[in-house]
């Protein structure tokens, strides 16, 4: 957290870098794409609902990939769907994050031996967070989204944009699909 350097009756004065301030704003407007491929999507809907209420962390669902920051792989992914998911991912603007929700999206899960199921979303997308479970409870999903928030907190992307940091190529290079 940004250290408070001076307390006053109204609150205080905090000192921090612009990066930190920007990341604070970014991490509290984490919009995820309302998109599900199988039964995990039911839990995804529940996460946005009043009981778990992901809204209180600034996580809202968006209906278009162009406004979304996070792509949730909610459910079993078939080969036929994989190219469509890839299309959605490509339409999202940077910076973007991917969460593999549930065992199917993480490893293929129950359908490991199936002929039509992709054995994990990380085989064609760079996945940031894996959430185990079949399906994961809404609490787990919120925790996964919070892990993304922690990741955003540490990102020096403004420094990177100004050329202060060398541009590194992403080791999780997305595959052709």
């Amino acid at each position, binding site marked *: 957290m940004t250290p408070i350097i001076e307390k006053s009756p109204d609150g205080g004065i905090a000192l921090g870098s612009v990066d930190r301030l920007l990341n604070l704003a970014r991490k509290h407007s984490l919009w995820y794409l309302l998109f599900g491929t199988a039964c995990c999507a039911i839990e995804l809907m529940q996460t946005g609902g009043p009981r778990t209420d992901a809204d209180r962390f600034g996580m809202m669902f968006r209906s278009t990939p162009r406004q979304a920051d996070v792509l949730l792989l909610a459910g079993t992914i*078939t080969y036929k769907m*994989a190219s469509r998911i890839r299309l959605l991912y490509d339409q999202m603007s940077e910076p973007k994050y991917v969460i593999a929700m549930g065992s199917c999206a993480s490893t293929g899960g129950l359908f490991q031996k199936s*002929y039509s199921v992709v*054995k*994990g979303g990380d085989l*064609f997308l760079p996945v940031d967070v894996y959430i185990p479970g079949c399906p994961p409870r809404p609490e787990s999903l919120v925790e996964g989204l919070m892990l993304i928030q922690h990741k955003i907190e540490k990102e020096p992307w403004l420094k990177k944009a100004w050329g202060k940091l060398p541009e590194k190529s992403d080791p999780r290079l997305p595959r*052709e699909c």
Partner: protein
Amino acid sequence: MKPVEIHAYLQQKLDKQIEWNEGEKSTGDPWAVIEADGWVDACLVTRDDDQLAFDFLRSLTGTDRPDDGKIEVVAHLWSYSRRHAFVLKTTVDRDAPVLASLTSIWPAAVWYEREIYDLLGIDFSGHPDLRRIMMPNDWVGHPLRKDYTEQADYRGIPTSRPGYATAVPEKVDE
């Protein structure tokens, strides 16, 4: 009507020989087998005959039988008006699987036949839109064939996940 009566009735109506199989008593339905060249005619009679009136194609599936060199196609029929059911089978050659389409009789057959084409590779002649339905259009092979080997990758996506195959035994000993 009971299935055995339906078979006897159908045998009267058709000049083709229809084989009858009781199946297992406790489980499953008895079935009738007809040659592939009489497949569409037999199905048309079951739908249009007033006594049979099978107005609903409940399911249409396929089974690979590599030991016999055949692929079996199974139609489960149901009649809403007469409240009776029947199972009709036919077989096609495994190496040159061609069968006449049932889409002109029951439009529900369109997707069923696409599925059988996708997974077993039977070419349904007269089908209006014979494309794959489960797998991508550029997939190689038909997954439910017993001798099917999966391609190593599909458009850059590997079809197997390393490390998992050893964790799950292929066969469990009895």
